[in-house]
């Protein structure tokens, strides 16, 4: 009886561990994380080749600070016009492509100034209003 109980407990523990392992680290569907290689949001702060954005179109806005990679550039998303970093302004809606080096240092490889009137932005806005949030994959 004791052995049976121990076996049952072992199996239960194993199943629970597998279940927790599958669900605890699930990131897809829960909004942006600092591991994402693309963040979309508005600029809240500009520093020395560094920018901070507040994400948009998600259930809850998150804040990320990125340093510009030495080869990084800034351009417009509608026609590909290259800009200087100093031409970025607070409240600009941007897409930042890059990567996270060690969990805390996000490197921006390309900053794209988005057109708020583009269909993709309009779609992300209307979807968010309808409860379909960006990076909250179903």
């Amino acid at each position, binding site marked *: 009886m004791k052995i049976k109980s121990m076996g049952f407990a072992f199996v239960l523990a194993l199943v629970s561990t597998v279940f927790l392992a*599958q669900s605890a*680290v*699930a*990131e*897809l569907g829960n909004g942006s994380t600092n*591991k*994402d*290689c*693309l963040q*979309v949001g508005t600029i809240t702060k500009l520093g020395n080749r560094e920018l901070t954005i507040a994400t948009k179109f998600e259930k809850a806005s998150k804040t990320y600070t990125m340093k510009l990679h030495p*080869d*990084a*550039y*800034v*351009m417009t*998303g*509608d*026609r*590909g*016009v*290259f*800009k*200087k*970093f100093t031409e970025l302004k607070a409240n600009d809606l941007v*897409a930042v*492509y*890059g*990567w*996270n*080096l060690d969990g805390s240092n996000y490197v921006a*490889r*390309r900053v*794209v100034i988005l057109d708020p*009137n*583009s*269909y*993709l932005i*309009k*779609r*992300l806005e209307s*979807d968010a209003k309808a409860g*379909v*949030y*960006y*990076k*909250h*994959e*179903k």
Partner: protein
Amino acid sequence: MKKKLFSLLTLSVALVALNLPAEAKKTILTDKDARDWQVIAPQDSDYPLRDYAILYDAGGTDGSIGVIGIPSMKTYRHIKCGTDLHNFPFSGSNAGNNNGTPDGKYLYVSDKGADTIAEVNLQTGWVERLFALPKPFGIHHSAAISPNGKYLFATGELTGKMLKLRLSDGATTVLDIPPAPSAPDYPDTSKDGKYVFSGNYYHSAVMVFSQDPFKLIKEIPVGKNPHGTNVSPTNRMVSVCDKLSATISIIDVDQLRVRKVIPVGAGPLHNQFDSLGKYVYNSCFVSDSTSKTDVMRMQLVDEFPIHYRCGHNSIAPDDAYYMSQNKFSTGLFTPTGIIFAVNFEEQDIDETSATYGKSVKLAPVDGEPHEGRQIFATYIQRWNTGKGEDLFEKGYDLGDYHVNFGEKGRPGLPANQHPQLEPNHTADSSRTWIPRDDGKPGVTKEGDVYVVRVKGFSYGYVPRFIHVPKGAKVRLIYTNIDKASGLTKNPDVTMGFTAAGYYGPRTMVFAVRGMSAVNEFVADKAGEFEYYCQQFCGPLHLEMRGTFFVDPPGGKASMGVGDYDEISKQETMLAPNEHQWIVGTNKLMNKLNEGSEPTI
């Protein structure tokens, strides 16, 4: 009566008034409308036309990169690269969707026919270096670039191998992918420098490799016969086209498991994520459609019909247009030769546009293009307005980012020189067309000539194995024996034969019903060479495979027995005084110093 007339007049005025704003909107050209020049009334500002984006396509059988304007779809030029081109990334970084984060300098295109990778200088418009891969390799669906732009990852579909290549000098690490049959398919790199994903066509799985050190770490089962495999720009997921399951499998990059299987059109082949990773578009060959999947809802949300038989695809850098790169055009265009032109179909995917979901242009194109990628035209400098010397010496700026045009750090190669290479498309062979030959398939000897009769059909060859001795004079007679317009509604197709690698430029022939193609060459290098159909012929086109053995004196050729060291030099692709621009070869195999070669 007067009252009635008055009412009628009022109604007419109201109708005219209602129509006025729409008419006015049509004829006013704003900056935002500029791209829609083809759907609004002609304006003075339409001429001269300057395209805002450029589509580069790996032209397949014409061995050239096609350079096409977006949205005009005018072909600007062809860049000669080799024999049979398949896939490429732009130099710079893989950050973003398939178009990446280019620096405007190069693209790296795989040549399945010659088994090479050509480096195309986007600024000069010529091939600048030729990467000679270790042999036998059998490249097909190359190549994906690392986030730091220093490495390529390529798949050896014909040998079951994978390769990591250092771009500075062509040094490589090669992995064998057992168990056979193993056919590594389209690869893509994760944007965080961790993984390489590649479908394994015969395993119905996606292989996961670590980028550094380069090794296989996992196989993830997906739908049947996965083809296009692409990482989303967010790096959160991978979309896999399950060609024979009519689904896409969405792999969670964080957990390395399939998160969802989404039904799309039949025969999905390739993925294009938009720049924000909101939608993924799939070319669906059998259903003749473009599927549009919302990856936030994880469901198919729209489907656009295409003319017929889409294959590869590409997306404009502003997400306004999707290009369906179709495979067949039989009966569509004016005949211009034995081999029909295939076509590109431009679809408007701007949801606010009047022509959303419609095909706005359709044009014939050369070759049989595979992968296409697009960039804004602003990356390409104007060299012909007296600024050439300045640009050459000082480089150019992309905003704050300064791009050097003079190359440094390429071991053994001269700095500040940009060669104008034109690698051989076909070489050292003669080709003729004859009326249909109905001789028995197989190898016979006529005098001192080995006559090799091969029959091609949907989907296979007779015979599957060909043996000739080294030094043999070979006359290949290739005949298309399809009885009618093929399976699954295919129109009358062209069948191809290319023995990949050394014999690629020597053997590539095409066959249409009613005629045979003859090709004569000398089999002067021993080895085992996979032959394949280089002209897309239907959903099981990739099944068209066979093996051409050139046996050394007193022995049998195999993957281990052959003149591979000599072949790997690829010297016959360029003139002798250009050989310095061939880099890589077998000598550098497995010389990457793994562990100190970060990919990010």
